[in-house]
């Protein structure tokens, strides 16, 4: 018989109470895990940013285009090893109120874009087919699976930024090089956008939404940024060149209040875990004050008693933590499926598991501290008088 055996027996002395406590902690850990995962998913674009890519956009706002002709001048800047461009297309597919019908759509330069994004893995034959057909498109694996799109299918959607009906033929399906890559995007030829807009809205200019630069070596990025932006300072479209990470971060920071709120809520949840557990441990220890006095009479010391109480609090806390973490996986999966467009890359990160279990374990230690101190300080004589 060892300490753990006694701890285990004590923990399940009141099975219903312990089970409810574990469930309470599991629910809190579940909420904690989901919130942390959402915050991580929110930052997925920032996390997945390449270290050698920069974005050049209109200095005032991303909604203003930059002249396509500027690409020649930008490509000559020392350090720029590759250049491509793209436009946010928008568009409405099917029922616009259905979340799953929303996914990012970009008009991209067919010849250069995928060279700059090696993380989008497209089979070579599909990429060739995409380049040859004006209204071809390439879809992410997830969005294709979600809607059952196959190669050769025609996708029809209503334009909003670029009005009218648009049709795209699926010629390629890409998958991510690693799990952090967004597999919910759609790319079609920028030339198709240009030609269609020219036909449909004569007089409307179609320029680049933003340029994507590959910088080599990556250490040249500050210099590239300064040089590019200085060249267009006095032009009709002054630019802002920043690392892809900063570019993505600017989108995330728009919702920083929400993210901060979520982080605060996750801290509150840790407090809830602590209170749920502390309540149970305080009750259990109070009921057993007499038993602890008996143990002290037998020669057990404060450190032994502390091991029993902390052990029990840790056991219950971690049991709830593990259950909560296990339940987080299907919940996150269901959440991701329900809102694929909002969270293209949503998964429970190892650090979230560590934080969740760490919160449960720390709560266990904190919950055990006060009752332990009280029991250790209580004299044997007073302890023996206690009626549990």
């Amino acid at each position, binding site marked *: 018989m060892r300490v753990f055996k006694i701890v285990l*027996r004590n923990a399940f*002395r009141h099975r219903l109470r312990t089970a409810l406590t574990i469930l309470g902690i599991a629910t809190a850990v579940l909420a904690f895990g989901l919130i942390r995962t959402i915050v991580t998913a929110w930052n997925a674009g920032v996390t997945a940013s390449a270290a050698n890519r920069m974005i050049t956009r209109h200095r005032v706002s991303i909604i203003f285009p930059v002249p396509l002709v500027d690409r020649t001048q930008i490509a000559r800047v020392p350090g720029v090893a590759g250049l491509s461009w793209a436009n946010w297309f928008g568009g409405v597919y099917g029922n616009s109120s259905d979340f799953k019908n929303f996914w990012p759509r970009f008009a991209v330069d067919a010849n250069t874009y995928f060279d700059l994004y090696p993380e989008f893995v497209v089979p070579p034959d599909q990429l060739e087919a995409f380049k040859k057909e004006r209204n071809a498109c390439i879809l992410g694996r997830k969005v294709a699976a979600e809607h059952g799109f196959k190669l050769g299918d025609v996708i029809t959607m209503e334009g909003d930024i670029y009005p009218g009906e648009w049709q795209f033929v699926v010629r390629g399906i890409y998958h991510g090089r690693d799990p952090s890559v967004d597999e919910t995007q759609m790319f079609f030829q920028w030339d198709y956008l240009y030609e269609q807009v020219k036909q449909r809205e004569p007089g409307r200019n179609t320029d680049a939404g933003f340029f994507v630069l590959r910088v080599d070596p990556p250490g040249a990025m500050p210099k590239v940024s300064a040089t590019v932006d200085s060249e267009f300072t006095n032009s009709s479209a002054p630019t802002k060149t920043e690392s892809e990470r900063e570019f993505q971060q600017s989108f995330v920071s728009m919702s920083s209040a929400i993210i901060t709120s979520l982080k605060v809520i996750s801290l509150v949840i840790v407090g809830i875990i602590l209170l749920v557990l502390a309540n149970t441990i305080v009750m259990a220890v109070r009921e057993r004050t007499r*038993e602890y006095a*008996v143990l002290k*009479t*037998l*020669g057990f010391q404060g450190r032994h008693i502390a091991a029993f109480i902390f052990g029990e609090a840790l056991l219950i806390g971690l049991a709830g933590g593990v259950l909560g973490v296990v339940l987080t996986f299907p919940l996150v999966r269901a959440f991701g499926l329900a809102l694929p467009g909002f969270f293209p890359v949503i998964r429970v990160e190892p650090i979230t598991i560590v934080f969740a279990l760490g919160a449960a374990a720390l709560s266990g230690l904190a919950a055990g501290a006060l009752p332990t101190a009280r029991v250790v300080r209580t*004299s044997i004589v007073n302890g*023996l008088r206690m009626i549990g």
Partner: protein
Amino acid sequence: MTNPLIQLRQVSKAYRRDSLTIPVLQGITLDVPEGEFLALMGPSGSGKTTLLNLIAGIDRPNQGTITVAGTDVTKLGESELAKWRARHIGFVFQFYNLIPVLTAYENVELPLLLTPLSKAERRQHVTTALGLVGLSDRVHHYPRQLSGGQEQRVAIARAIAADPTILVADEPTGDLDRQSAEEVLTLLDRLNKEFHKTIVLVTHDPHAAQRAHTTRHLDKGELQ
């Protein structure tokens, strides 16, 4: 009397209740030789349990010295005192105080967990102790599955498992029926006579006190 096992000199004890100081024991001087079976009697509130607690090292006097087996227990720190209790004292409570989630075997094994004994040696001690109290067939029973008399016998087995120097018993028959009480007293008597255990027994029951070699009466905190 030479070399008494338990030696109390001018021991006084008072408790504080808010601003009040309530004297419980006053100037107690007592010698208990090795192998003695001493009964402490007296009315409620006379201080007999307090005296027993002081001898067992679970309470401390305000004044005086208590020397047990050559050690002045009043000078020991908390940790040393706990180790001393584990080595020298076997305590039998009125209400048995077994740990309800542990079997009879595991309850008896508890004090042995503090010793350097191996698992096999502990098993031998537990089996012997439970055999001695006549409960070899109840080793895997939980306290709730035992009668009051059986629970008290398990408690005695727990008290003697580590072979302590002194056995102290606080009203060990107070919660038992006549027959169970008789069994427990016979057991204590046997431990004293056959195994030469020094026993200090606190009791209200004159019948129980008759089993002791010596009976001392306490009244208002003073030994008569």
